[in-house]
Every structure is written in C-alpha cells, then in structure tokens.
C-alpha cells in the first residue's frame, strides 16, 4: 500500500497551528501518513546510546501514553526514540516521527521497518524536501519541530553533550512543559538529564509525579507494583548499577554468593544485566 504524501504550506488551513509557536516555522511541512496526528502530543526523547534504564523509562511512559490515546512524538533515532515509538505502536497507540532528513528517507538504516510502519499507519513528517539526506546541521531544526509538536516533553536519558538540550530549550522557550527523568549521579549516561534538572526542568522523582505532570494531558498513570526490593544487593544495585565484582566488594560478599543472588534477582525482575556487564534496575 502506498501511503499518501502531503505538503502543507504555511498559511494553509491544514498547516499545524502548533508550529506557528516556533520563531522560524518551516515554510512547507513534508509528510507521509495520517494528517490528523499533527497535533501536540507527548514528546519522548533521549540519547542514542541509552542504558536499559533509559530505554525502560522510554518504553514505560510511551506505553502509558498509548493506553490514554496520546500521540507519542519522537525522532525515530536509535535508542530512546525508537524504544518509545515502538512501545507506543505496540501498545496500540499513535506515534509521530519527526525527521532530520526527507520524510521519505530511511534513516537510521536500522529503522527502515519502523519507519515504514509509521508511514503507513501513523505519520512521519519533516521540514526538509523529499529525498534530503540526513546531515548534522539538519537535526537542530528537527528538534525544534519535535518541541513544537509536544504538549509536554519528557527527556528520559541524556549524556553530556546532547542534542536533547536543543529540544528541551526550544520546548521551554515556546511554553511547553519539560520533564526529565533523573539518573544516578555516577552514571555518565545520566549527566545530561541531571543537568537539565539543575537548570530548572521539572524532575520526575516518582512515577506518581509523572501522572500529575501528565494530568495536563489528561493522562493517569498506573501505580507501581513495588515488588520485593528488600534484598540488600537488590537495593544497592537499584541505587547504583554495578558490576558483580564491585558489588561483592561494596557488600563484602564473595563472588559466588553475589552471582547466585544476582541470578535470583534477575529472575524476580528486580535487576537486569546491562550490555556493559553491570546489573541495575530494569
């Protein structure tokens, strides 16, 4: 099935009004898919090289948005963006991808199937003409569009430096609510989000915070089940992801005991193994 392409010129009745909040809105918005999705939704963004924690936040919040029929807006980038959009689609929700290249260009390459699905059943838009290749200089503009298409913007994880800062600043300057998920102060992957919070972005300190924040979008958030986290090793790892060696040293346990306990905690779903060998919340 060939999905319909559209070109909306500034001044057209169908040109999304939210884009006019931007100081320099695109003259033409190119897109493929469902035009009815071009209204502010929940923007979920984060770094490409995300930790399982970041990915899990992206998935969880996008999943909730899906159940409340709120459109998840993101950039289809590797990592948090794709995790959020996949979760939104998987949860039966809607999703809008804003590209830093032509809306018909498959970038990143690994996202070709996701983009195809977005184009046929959801929407993919861009401020760049058809066939424009991805260029470094295009992404700030893409980030401005994401900000404009967000009623509220959630930064799930960002390192330093990060392109998410552009999106967050743009969203703040045009009066969107910006939230950030705080991370461990030891984790380089979370320095960006923690910095945003120190600069005044509202932190999500508790899952219920999010439900208050998202009340703006008439969304409610299910309660956390708070399953058994009384194990000292589990508690230590949730506070600060560690490799088994470090955990053994911190808790003064031998490595065999730690490995066996980790196996049990993993089975219970309390901690997970990160791709870098550390164990932490999942």
């Amino acid at each position, binding site marked *: 099935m060939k999905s319909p392409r559209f070109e909306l010129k500034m001044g057209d009745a169908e040109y999304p009004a939210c884009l006019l909040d931007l100081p320099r809105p695109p003259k033409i918005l190119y897109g493929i898919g469902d035009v009815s999705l071009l209204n502010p939704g929940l923007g979920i963004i984060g770094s490409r090289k995300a930790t399982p924690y970041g990915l899990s936040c992206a998935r969880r919040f996008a999943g909730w948005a899906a159940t409340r029929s709120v459109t998840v807006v993101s950039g289809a980038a590797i990592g948090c963006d794709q995790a959020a959009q996949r979760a939104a689609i998987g949860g039966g929700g809607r999703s809008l991808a804003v590209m830093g290249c032509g809306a018909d260009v498959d970038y990143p390459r690994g996202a070709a199937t996701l983009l195809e699905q977005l184009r046929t059943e959801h929407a993919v838009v861009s401020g760049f003409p058809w066939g424009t290749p991805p260029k470094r200089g295009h992404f700030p503009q893409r980030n401005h569009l994401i900000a404009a298409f967000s009623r509220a913007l959630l930064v799930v994880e960002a390192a330093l430096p990060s392109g998410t800062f552009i999106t967050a600043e743009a969203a703040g300057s045009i009066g969107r609510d910006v939230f950030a998920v705080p991370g461990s102060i030891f984790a380089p992957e979370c320095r960006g989000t923690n910095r945003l919070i120190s600069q005044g972005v509202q932190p999500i300190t508790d899952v219920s915070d999010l439900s208050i924040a998202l009340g703006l979008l008439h969304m409610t958030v299910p309660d956390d089940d708070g399953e058994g986290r009384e194990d000292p090793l589990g508690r230590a790892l949730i506070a600060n992801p560690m490799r088994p*060696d470090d955990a053994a040293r911190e808790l003064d346990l031998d*490595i065999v005991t730690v490995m066996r306990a980790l*196996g049990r905690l993993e089975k219970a779903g309390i901690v997970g193994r990160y791709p*870098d060998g550390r164990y932490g919340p999942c």
Partner: protein
Amino acid sequence: MTRYGRASADTATLVGIEAVPVEVEVDVGPGLPTFQVVGLADTAVLEARERVRSAVRSAGYEFPNARVVVNLAPGRLRKHGTGFDLPIASALLASTGQIDPGLLRETLFVGELSLDGQVRPVAGLLAHARGARDRRLTLVGPPGVDAIAAALPGLRVRPLDRLSGIGRQESGCHRVQAAWSPRAAHPDLGEVVGQHLAKRALEIAAAGAHNLLLLGPPGSGKSMLARRFCGILPPLTAEESLTVAMLHSVAGFDERPALAGVRPFRDPHHTCSIAGLVGGGAPPRPGEVSLAHQGLLFLDELPEFGPSALQALRQPMEDGFVTLVRADGRVRFPSRFALIAAANPCPCGFLGDPEKSCACTAAVIARYQGRVGGPLLDRIDMSVWMPRTDPGSLLNCIAEESSASVLERVMEARERAIARDGVPSSALTGRLLRESCAMTAAAVDELTDTARLRAVSGRAVTRVLRVARTIADLTGCDRVDSDHVSEAFGYRKAEGRMT
C-alpha cells in the same frame, strides 16, 4: 687418489608429524667432477650439496674429485628440510671408504651441517626419533637427541656434535644441551589482584573445558589472566605430552616444555593468517590451533582478527583435528584446545566504564562487535566483564588464592565429570546433558522462569545448563540445583554479539 664406490644411509622426511623412511644412496664414480641430487628434493635439500662439500673438508675428510650422484628413494615422495645433510655426508664418506660402511647399518641419520662441520638441530627431531624407535634403528643426530631418548623408552641414540666424530663408534658428543627446567612454567593466579568474577569464570572454564570470552577496557588484565589458565589445569599425561611435543617439534619449536608436561599457551597476534592459524604451507606445518593442542589458544583483540581466519577456526574446534589436503597427499594435525578470547567492548574500549565515557557512536560499536561471526560466538559458553582495576586495590595487598589451590578444585570437578559422562560438560548436548544434570525441581523452575523472563534462546539455555553442570561439579553436587543455575545465568553471553 679418489676411490670410487657406492653406499646408502637411512633417514626420513616429515609428512605431517610422521617420519616417512627415505634411503640416501650415494654413488661416486668416474666422470667429470659433479655433485648431483635426484629424487624430488626441494630447495633446502638441494642446498645440502654446498653444506656437505664444505663440512666434509672442514671435518678433515676429502671430498671426492669425481662424479657424485645422490639418490633419495622412494623417488615419488617429496623431500624437504635440511636434515638430509648428515645422511648424505655419511653415505658419501662410506662410499669413498673414508669411514667404515658398517657404521651405517641399523642407523638413522638426521641433522643439518654447518660449513665448519658442526651438526645442527632440525625441526621435527622428535618425530624422527619416534620413527627411528619404531624401525628399531639407532638415531644419529645433533646434540639434543639424548634428551629426547629419555622421553622415548626403547630409543637408542648417538648424539654427534661434529661431522669429524662420525668415524668413531662411541657417542663423541662434547656439547651438552642445557636441561630444560619447568620452573615457573605458568605464572601464578595469586599475582592477579581482584577480578574475582573473571577468576571464578576461569576456574569454571578450566573445570568444564568451556570456551570463555573476556570483555573489558585495555589494561584490565585480560591477557594476564589468560596466561594463568594452563596453571590451573592438570599437567599433560605422558601420551598427551608426546603428541604435543611432536607438534611443536615438527613446527620447529622447543619440545622440551611439552615433554615436561607443560600445557602450551599460544597467543597469535591478530594479523595472523589463516594458514598461520589452522596450519598450511608446503610442506604443511601445524598452525596455532594445533600448537595449542591440549593447551590454550588465546585470541586477544578478537574483533581485529580477519573474519575468514575466525571462520576457519570452526572446524578444528568442532572436530579436534585439522586436515590439510595438498596435491601430494593429506596431513592431519590434532587440535583439541581451550579457547579464551578477549575483546574491548568498543573501539575506544570505554563502553560501560563508570568514569570515562565512551567516544564511539552506536553504529561504530555495532560494526565493531559484528566483526566476530556468530558461528564462533556460538561456540563460546561464557562471557565475563573485566572492569579496570581500582589503583587503590592494586596496592592493597590482600592474599589472593594461588593457582595450586584452584587446581585442586578443578581436578576434582574434572574427575567427577569424566567418571560420570566420560567427557567434560562442555561436550554434552541434548538428552545426555539433561540426564547428566539431573536437575532438582527448584533448578528446573529457576531455569524456565529466567529463560522466559529474559527471552533467552534455546541454544543459550543449553550453554547455561552446561555451565551449571560444571558449577555443580565444582561444588561437589551430583544434581544441578537452583543456585548453580542462578550463577550460570550470570556468565551467559548475549546472542549473536559480544556484549
């Protein structure tokens, strides 16, 4: 005045690790003074003419001013190497009556000659020695054959350090080769500070013959640990050590450590060619996989190896031998080795480092990790991360367990596994593996729940189970319990990629 005559001496040429009999016939007759060698000789053998000519003169004998023809029989067999110098010279001296032809009877000659008449060692001396013993011949060769005689009961030898001594019946060897001492054959595990997870994995790998992948930034001690692996394995048995020594001897390496029971440690550089890795060349020489037979093959910087070289590792790992087929025949070298591979998690090495952030993009990391083919990774049962060691703990000298005490546990576990299954747990599959594990109900629950929750593939479950079997053996348990499964899950490797 030159005497004409004819004589022959016995020698051998190497085909793989076998010494195939070759007869050297020398005919000295009238005609223009020439020196010819016939009988499918390679360049090194043809060059023997110049060495023999000079060595004979240096040894105080006369080189016949006549037509000299050397025939190497059987004619269809290709001969190579420098070991023909001594048999050619001996037969030449006997044919001209300069030494007693009786000296050539029931004797096998092997050795290279120097221009001043010294007898030099050749590659594969051990294989020649075994050939001599099997043919009930006395081996006359370079100093060093006497050391080999100690390893091959029933072998008679006559070491010779100079060609001038060949006319004497007695040994006539003045140079004595320094004895090889097995002192500190492998460095001790106790010298490695921290890294308890990796050490535990090393112990399990040694006990169950599992292949291991070590991941970590540069300088975290991956090679240091691998060098200590053979020290926690029992020494080679007499039979194993002879095979290993033979392979090393044929490749021109020192065979004495292997004869002393020391397991080989091979760490080829990542620029190693396919032929270097699995064996090859003409004549075929054993590659690193065969030189690591009954020992450890350590591949540092795994993703830097050529993809085709890694692909070539598959068959030797599976079969335990390499067959090299050449136009003039096929050669088989054994290759039953343990594999430890080490890799940086990403090109810069700092992916997942708690302090230094990684400078690589996601695409670069994926490409780097994708360089190691799935088939090789599939044969690796365990993977562990080795973080950079905290400098403070390096100075904080706490007593670390020595190789000797780890070896005790490893030997016990190996004996249990062999007594029960006849093979190490890494070789178990399917029904045999399940029966051998005899899992408790709790262990079954643990395995199925974790596998379902973590979406672990069937193949990965098999690997976890094998490792759990070994962990149970190390603990001294007949049945695999949930504790063993929990621990084994921690060493599992991600599907199809390194991390």
